[in-house]
C-alpha cells in the first residue's frame, strides 16, 4: 500500500508540472494582461512601470522559472486584479464552493442510490419506468437551462426560495457556512439541486445497471437458497457488489462538482471559486488561473487516491492484487 501511495504521489507531481506549463504558456498565448489593466490613456512611462511591477517585462521562460521557485515556497503569485496572494483569494472562495459541492454529492447519493436500487429491483413497475424516464431528462437537459427554470419556477413564480447569494452564514465548530442557518439552507437549496441533478441521474442509472446485472447472478440465488431474507440478500449481498462502481463514480463526481460548479455559481450568483475563475479568465489574471487549476488538480489527485483506497476496502480482490505488487 505504501509503495502504491508513493508511486501515486510521484505521478501526481508530474501531472502538476505539465499542468502548470500548459496553463502558463496557454494564458500567455491568449492575450496580454497589460492591455486590460493599464488604462487606455496611460503614457509610456506608466505602462513600463506597470509591466515591471507585474514582472511581465522578463521573457516568458524566466517568468515561469520565477513562478516555479516561488511556488515551491508556497507562493503562487499575487492576483493582478486584487493585488492579494492568489491562494488567499481562492481559499476565501473555497468554502462556498465546497458546501455547494458536498450538498450536491450528498443529494446524488441519498436520492440516486435508493431510486436506482428500486428501479433495478422492479424494472417492470410503473414507478421504475417513471424514475428512468426522469433520469434521462436529468442527464440530457443542460445545467444552465435547468438552473434558469428552477429560478423561474421556485423563485419568481412561486416565490418559495431565494435565487441569489449564500444568505446568512452560521458558525459551527469555527466553520462559517450556509449550512447552519435556515436562511442559508434556503439559499443553498436551488443551486445544490441544480448542480446535483446530473449526478443524481448518473447514480440512478449506474445503481440500476448494477442491480440488474447482479440480481440474476448465482451468488444471489445461492444466498436465497440459504434461506436469507430478501432484505439481507439485497442490502448486504447485492449492495456491497454494486457499491464498487458507484463509489468510483461518486469520487469522480466530487471532483467534478467542485471544479465545474462554474455554470451553477454564475447563474445563482454563488460567491464560490467557479465564479472567481470565470472573472479571472475574463481579466487574464494569470496567477489566479494557474493557482485555481493547480488546486483543482491537487483536489482531483487526493479524491482519486481516497477512491482507490476505498475501493480496496470494498473489494477484497483488489486488496490481494495490490499486496502482490508491492
Amino acid at each position: 500500500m505504501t509503495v502504491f501511495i508513493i508511486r501515486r504521489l510521484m505521478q501526481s507531481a508530474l501531472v502538476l508540472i505539465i499542468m502548470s506549463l500548459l496553463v502558463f504558456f496557454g494564458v500567455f498565448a491568449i492575450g496580454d494582461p497589460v492591455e486590460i489593466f493599464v488604462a487606455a490613456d496611460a503614457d509610456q512611462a506608466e505602462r513600463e512601470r506597470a509591466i515591471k511591477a507585474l514582472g511581465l517585462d522578463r521573457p516568458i521562460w524566466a517568468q515561469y522559472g520565477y513562478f516555479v521557485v516561488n511556488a515551491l515556497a508556497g507562493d503562487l503569485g499575487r492576483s493582478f486584479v486584487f493585488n492579494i496572494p492568489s491562494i488567499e483569494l481562492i481559499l476565501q472562495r473555497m468554502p462556498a464552493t465546497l458546501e455547494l459541492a458536498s450538498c450536491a454529492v450528498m443529494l446524488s447519493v441519498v436520492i440516486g442510490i435508493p431510486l436506482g436500487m428500486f428501479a433495478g429491483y422492479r424494472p417492470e413497475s410503473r414507478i421504475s419506468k417513471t424514475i428512468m424516464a426522469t433520469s434521462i431528462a436529468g442527464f440530457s437537459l443542460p445545467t444552465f437551462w435547468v438552473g434558469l427554470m428552477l429560478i423561474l419556477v421556485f423563485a419568481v413564480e412561486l416565490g418559495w426560495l431565494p435565487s441569489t447569494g449564500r444568505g446568512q452564514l452560521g458558525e459551527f465548530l469555527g466553520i462559517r457556512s450556509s449550512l447552519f442557518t435556515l436562511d442559508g439552507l434556503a439559499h443553498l437549496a436551488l443551486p445544490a439541486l441544480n448542480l446535483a441533478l446530473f449526478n443524481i441521474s448518473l447514480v440512478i442509472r449506474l445503481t440500476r445497471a448494477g442491480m440488474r446485472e447482479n440480481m440474476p447472478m448465482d451468488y444471489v440465488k445461492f444466498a436465497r437458497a440459504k434461506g436469507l431474507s430478501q432484505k439481507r440478500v439485497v442490502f448486504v449481498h447485492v449492495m456491497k457488489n454494486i457499491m464498487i462502481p458507484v463509489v468510483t463514480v461518486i469520487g469522480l463526481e466530487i471532483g467534478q462538482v467542485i471544479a465545474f460548479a462554474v455554470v451553477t455559481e454564475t447563474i445563482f450568483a454563488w460567491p464560490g471559486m467557479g465564479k472567481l475563475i470565470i472573472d479571472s479568465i475574463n481579466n487574464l489574471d494569470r496567477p489566479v488561473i494557474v493557482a485555481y487549476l493547480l488546486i483543482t488538480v491537487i483536489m482531483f489527485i487526493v479524491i482519486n487516491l481516497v477512491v482507490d483506497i476505498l475501493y480496496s476496502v470494498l473489494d477484497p480482490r483488489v486488496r490481494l492484487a495490490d499486496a502482490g505488487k508491492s
Partner: protein
Amino acid sequence: MTAATLSVENLETHFFTKAGVLKAVNDVSFEVRQGKILGLVGESGSGKSVTGFSIMGLVDPPGRIVGGRVRFKGQDIVGMPEDQIRKLRGNRIAMIFQDPMMTLNPVLKVETQMIEAVQAHDSVDRKTAWTRARDALGQVGIPSPEERLAAYPHQFSGGMRQRVAIAIALLNKPDLIVADEPTTALDVTIQGQILYEVQKLARETRTALIWITHDLSVVASLADEICVMYAGRIVERGSVDEVLDRPAHPYTAGLIGSVPSRNEKGKPLVQIPGVMPSMLNLPSGCAFRLRCSHADATCCDEPKPRGHLRQVRCCHPLAEIA
C-alpha cells in the same frame, strides 16, 4: 416402510416467454427417502435444474409452478407463503449449485456467508454460529478451518469453494440436499473426492440427496435410483442397476451407449443423432421420436408411463417392465 422425505407429484413448471409457453418441467413425479440418493440425469435444457429450483421454491418469473405438488415430509411446498418456505430453505432443504466460482459472494468473507446461514434459521449468537461453521468446514475436509473462515472466496481453489458450498448446505443438518451438477465445473480428480465426501456425508447423516447431472458415470457410482429426463419429462425411472443394465427407453440406451469409455478404441464415438428439440415447439406425442430408430406411427400419440417404481414412458420399450 418410512414415508418419503420428498415426493414430487405431477410437477409442472412453465416459463411464460414472449415466444410462447415453455414447459420446462412437464408432469414430473418421483420421490426420495431418508438416506437415499436419487440421480436426475438429462442433457442441458432437459428441465433438470428447473426441477431442482421448483423443489426449493426458487423459480423466478417468467417461470411459475403451474401444477402438481412438491411434498416435503407431507407438507406441500407449492403455493406455500414465501416466509414459510424461506424457513425450510437452507434449513431443512439445502441446495448446492453447479459453478463454485459463481455461488459464493466475492466481497463477503466465508465466515460471514456461513454465519448468516446459521443465524437465518437459528437464534444463536455469533460465537456458536462460528463454531458450527468451523465444524462444517472441517467435516467437508478443508484443512485449518479456523484460518480459512476469515478468507474471501477468491482465496480458494474451485474444488475448495465447492467444499465450502457443501459445508454451507450441511450447516443446518438438512433432511434433503438438492445438488445441481456440483462436480461438473471441477477437475476429474477433485470430482472424485467430492463425490466420495458427499456420499459419505449423506450416508452418515441419513440425508436424502437429489443429484442432478448429465454425467451417467457419476450417477452410476453414487445413486440408488435414477430418473432420466428428456424435454421436461421423466422418460425412465428405476434403480441404478436396472436402468443402467437393462435400459428400457431408447434415449437412456443412447445415453449409455454414448459414454466414451464404453466405446471401442479406434471406432467413431457413438452418438444419439440430432439435437434435443426446442422446448417451445416439441413434436406431438413422444418428444424423442424424431431422434429414435424405433419410432413409428404409434409414437405420434403421447406415450403413457408404464410400470410404477420401475417406470418408462415409451411406446416401444427395449426391456420388459414388470
